[in-house]
């Protein structure tokens, strides 16, 4: 029921699937305000993560799997998203190290540490039109849901909803970090690809959490 090793593995597999499915959409977004490789970068990275999952010990913790994802993404993505998501999963996994299942507080701790990792790495602030604009509302929503005593599944669903809204809300922004910052005002009207992929990742977290807690 609770979010354990199996959920972490399911989440990573579901992430790889959704990234592959949305690959060309992410490429298109990145072509508009960047260099057009965000979909390829993530597809390459999560495909490499999946390839390593079979060799993970049965008694691994969620943190073990997410740390493996971190180092694999860092080594394979090849663009800004590699160090950024890599640092997110790394810091997130440190925050839940040793826990075999994650309760609501652990989920919040993971998301907060992941977001803080992206900020530590990329120095972006909210409103800079980056993935942070998906992660920060997601963390805020998760904190609020946890404060209201909601379940892990509900917390992740709230985070995913907020991330999607945050990604959409990057459209009117001018970018102050990353390649889109070269575009100045011309970035207005385009959604940030990293915010979009962050929303996909968190949606995969919520959906796999719902499935594992419903026992499927």
């Amino acid at each position, binding site marked *: 029921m609770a979010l354990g090793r199996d959920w972490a593995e399911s989440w990573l597999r579901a992430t790889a699937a959704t990234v592959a499915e949305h690959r060309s959409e992410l490429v298109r977004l990145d072509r508009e305000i960047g260099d057009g490789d965000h979909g390829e970068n993530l597809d390459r990275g999560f495909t490499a993560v999946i390839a390593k999952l079979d060799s993970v010990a049965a008694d691994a913790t969620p943190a073990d799997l997410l740390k493996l994802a971190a180092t694999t993404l860092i*080594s394979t993505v090849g*663009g800004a998203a*590699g160090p950024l998501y890599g640092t997110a999963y790394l810091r997130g996994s440190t925050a839940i190290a040793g826990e075999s299942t994650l309760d609501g507080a652990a989920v919040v701790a993971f998301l907060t540490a992941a977001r803080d990792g992206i900020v530590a790495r990329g120095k972006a602030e909210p409103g800079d039109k980056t993935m942070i604009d998906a992660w920060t509302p997601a963390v805020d929503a998760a904190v609020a849901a946890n404060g209201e005593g909601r379940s892990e599944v509900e917390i992740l669903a709230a985070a995913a909803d907020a991330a999607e809204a945050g990604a959409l809300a990057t459209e009117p922004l001018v970018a102050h970090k990353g390649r889109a910052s070269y575009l100045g005002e011309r970035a207005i009207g385009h959604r940030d690809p990293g915010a979009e992929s962050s929303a996909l990742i968190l949606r995969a977290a919520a959906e796999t959490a719902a499935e594992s807690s419903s026992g499927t």
Partner: protein
Amino acid sequence: MSVGLVIVSHSEKIADGVVDLARQMARDVSMQPAGGTDDGGIGTSFERVTAGIEAADSGDGVVVLCDLGSAILTAETALDFLDDDARARVRIADAPLVEGAVAAAVAAQSGDSLDEVVAAAQSASAAS
């Protein structure tokens, strides 16, 4: 020995070319190109950067020069994975890649300290 340099670029050709160019004015400095992705495409490689830092480090320090922002992110991440001792000897310069690399190479060739080589890179502006 002297301070070593790592040239981090999204392009293998750029990194290799910068080493060729800086080499002319710095025959004895360890300069490591770390350009392109693992398979030589446009992008940056954590492995190439990490290997470059290790190869450039003779104990006197390493200055890392980067082209675009995501190269800096990769370099900073590589630093995170070094042990504290090695990391203490590595600096990422806030300098233009080509111009900073030439200035840093000349300083390193002259036996300047790590801080001096960083300062040389960072004071390099457009072509002089």
